[in-house]
């Protein structure tokens, strides 16, 4: 590019920025000089982004996917890969009775009835379509259905490699194999470009952007990259994810969250893209509801592997005890908010981390590689007796044995009068050594809130109370679907369905 044209471009983008910043729109005569044009531009590269990108590319549209990080997939490639599919073929085959009513009841209970019913209906009714889209791309799932906390019946399809990458990688391959598709990583979305009518017609990005996780506030401090303008003829899909790693914005929502709070999110999970949508008028919904994942461990950083043990084994088939009392203190498979709140209560100020444990049988449901890695890391420990377990964590051995005996009795009777836990139907109690245990802590996990969308995945404007033309959104950047607290495994469902719907409508 010659100096002259670069200078022109800078002028134009400065103009575009100034124009949008003032809330004014550019006239056609002042149209920016685009560096490229596509039918659809998708911001982000997780579940929602891939569903939108693959679906619109399948319709024959040209699609650009922009991702600020070097790696594709954000949180979607580091999570546990459990995808809630109500009324699924696997449920049917395994004789599990599920219903619309039950799914709604579970989800609304966890969401404290703050869930947007239209969006809930959408993710319920299109769940199997989203599942089929992933299967068509080549995703593979295990036969064992997971029952994440708060679900009355097992609904969780788990990817065969035990992470969301089992969905993202085949979808990325499929996307790249479709004509007129492009992925730009290390490309940061900065601004929407709107026309006179307020329609989103393109985006301003920075290519060769390098996220710097040493910065306190990358969104504002990082000036790297080369500015580019790309036109989106049909529309832009915002699928940039949540903001649990945004130290500034999350603290504005919950001042008690310390800057060094542990999160399961990758370091790039910041609020910048969502805030840009607010700036052009998108309605904010539920942004102060932040969810903590209750199945994490203080003995590893980030997402780690702890959730694999706690979700699949200890919570469902075992118990969690307070170190100070050696007794249970919660329903181990309640919704995430209930559990995180209970755990924080007992953790208190003296880091009294609770102990989650189960016997030898449930760990067989874990993926072998993950179990081996977790055990080798030392976060998960193995004990031949309950006495040894008690000794390791400083529990009272006789109280612990009473707690276990009481729980085993509840399992036999099929009823937990203390905390109302749904007990394992196969009668798995805590009796066959060796026992497996770990210390637990909730970690910042999911931003419940975001931009408001309708059931066509269109972003709603606070200026007109109508959809913003040319702007769609899906996934964690949106708010309302899950209410105050999301059920485990409903994120992948939400992301894939809404992304797919955005891809159908854009």
């Amino acid at each position, binding site marked *: 590019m010659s100096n002259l044209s670069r200078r022109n471009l800078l002028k134009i983008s400065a103009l575009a920025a100034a124009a949008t910043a003032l809330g004014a729109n550019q006239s056609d005569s002042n149209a920016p000089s685009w560096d490229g044009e596509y039918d659809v531009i998708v911001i982000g590269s997780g579940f929602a982004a891939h569903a939108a990108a693959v679906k619109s590319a399948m319709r024959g549209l040209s699609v650009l996917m922009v991702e600020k990080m070097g790696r594709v997939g954000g949180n979607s490639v580091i999570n546990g890969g459990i995808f809630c599919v109500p009324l699924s073929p696997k449920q049917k085959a395994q004789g599990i009775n599920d219903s619309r009513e039950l799914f709604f009841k579970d989800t609304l209970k966890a969401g404290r009835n703050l869930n947007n019913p239209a969006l809930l209906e959408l993710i319920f009714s299109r769940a199997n379509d989203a599942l089929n889209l992933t299967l068509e791309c080549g995703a593979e799932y295990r036969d064992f259905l997971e029952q994440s906390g708060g679900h009355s019946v097992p609904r969780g399809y788990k990817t065969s490699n035990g992470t969301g990458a089992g969905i993202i*990688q085949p979808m990325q391959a499929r996307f790249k194999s479709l004509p007129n598709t492009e992925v730009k990583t290390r490309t940061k979305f900065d601004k929407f470009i709107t026309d006179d009518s307020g329609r989103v017609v393109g985006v301003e990005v920075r290519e060769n952007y390098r996220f710097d996780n040493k910065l306190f506030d990358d969104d504002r401090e990082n000036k790297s990259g080369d500015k580019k303008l790309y036109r989106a003829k049909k529309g832009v899909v915002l699928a940039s994810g949540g903001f649990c790693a945004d130290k500034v914005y999350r603290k504005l929502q919950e001042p008690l969250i310390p800057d060094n709070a542990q999160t399961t999110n990758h370091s790039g999970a910041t609020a910048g893209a969502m805030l840009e949508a607010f700036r052009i008028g998108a309605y904010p919904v539920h942004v102060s509801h932040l969810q903590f994942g209750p199945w994490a461990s203080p003995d590893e950083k980030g997402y780690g592997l702890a959730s694999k043990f706690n979700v699949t084994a200890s919570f469902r088939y075992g118990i969690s005890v307070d170190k100070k009392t050696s007794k249970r203190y919660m329903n181990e498979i309640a919704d995430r908010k209930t559990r995180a709140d209970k755990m924080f209560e007992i953790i208190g100020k003296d880091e009294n981390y609770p102990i989650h444990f189960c016997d030898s049988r449930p760990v067989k449901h874990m993926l072998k590689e993950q179990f081996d890695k977790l055990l080798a890391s030392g976060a998960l420990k193995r004990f031949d007796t309950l006495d040894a377990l008690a000794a390791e964590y400083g529990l009272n051995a006789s109280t612990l044995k009473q707690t276990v005996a009481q729980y085993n009795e509840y399992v036999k009777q099929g009823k937990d009068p203390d905390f109302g836990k749904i007990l394992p139907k196969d009668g798995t109690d805590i009796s066959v050594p060796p026992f497996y245990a770990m210390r637990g802590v909730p970690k910042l996990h999911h931003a419940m809130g975001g931009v408001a969308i309708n059931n066509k995945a269109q972003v709603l404007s606070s200026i007109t109370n109508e959809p913003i033309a040319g702007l769609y959104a899906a996934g964690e950047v949106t708010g309302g679907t899950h209410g105050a607290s999301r059920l485990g495994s409903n994120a992948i469902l939400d992301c894939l369905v809404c992304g797919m719907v955005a891809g159908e409508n854009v």
Partner: protein
Amino acid sequence: MIKRVLCLLFCLACAGFASDELSVKYPLKPHHEHLALGCADCHENQGDEPSKFKAIGDKGCLSCHKSKKLLAKRLEFMDVLKANPHNSVHDGPTLYCDECHNEHKESTNMCLECHEHEVKEWMGVTP
């Protein structure tokens, strides 16, 4: 003649000093140092002002190291636990080289962001 010799010695001394200074400022990794690589072997066609050199990117690295698939293959034994950093369960052979490997400063290991305690059980220090 003596003047010329002195001049030559002076020049050599300067050159030696300059390259020493550069090698302190932009140290190479031992395996590249061993190959006696010069700045321009990697920073091709980037002029002769080291402070203005740009990162060479994947294309630069792969001009010698061939392909990410081949690099993944060299650590294939780690695939059994899906811990191969060049072909991990999360990313496959797709990461940017400089996500972990740095030439002029200490390399990092991206896996550590989530698997702090496990990584040392899986692999050595990032070269």
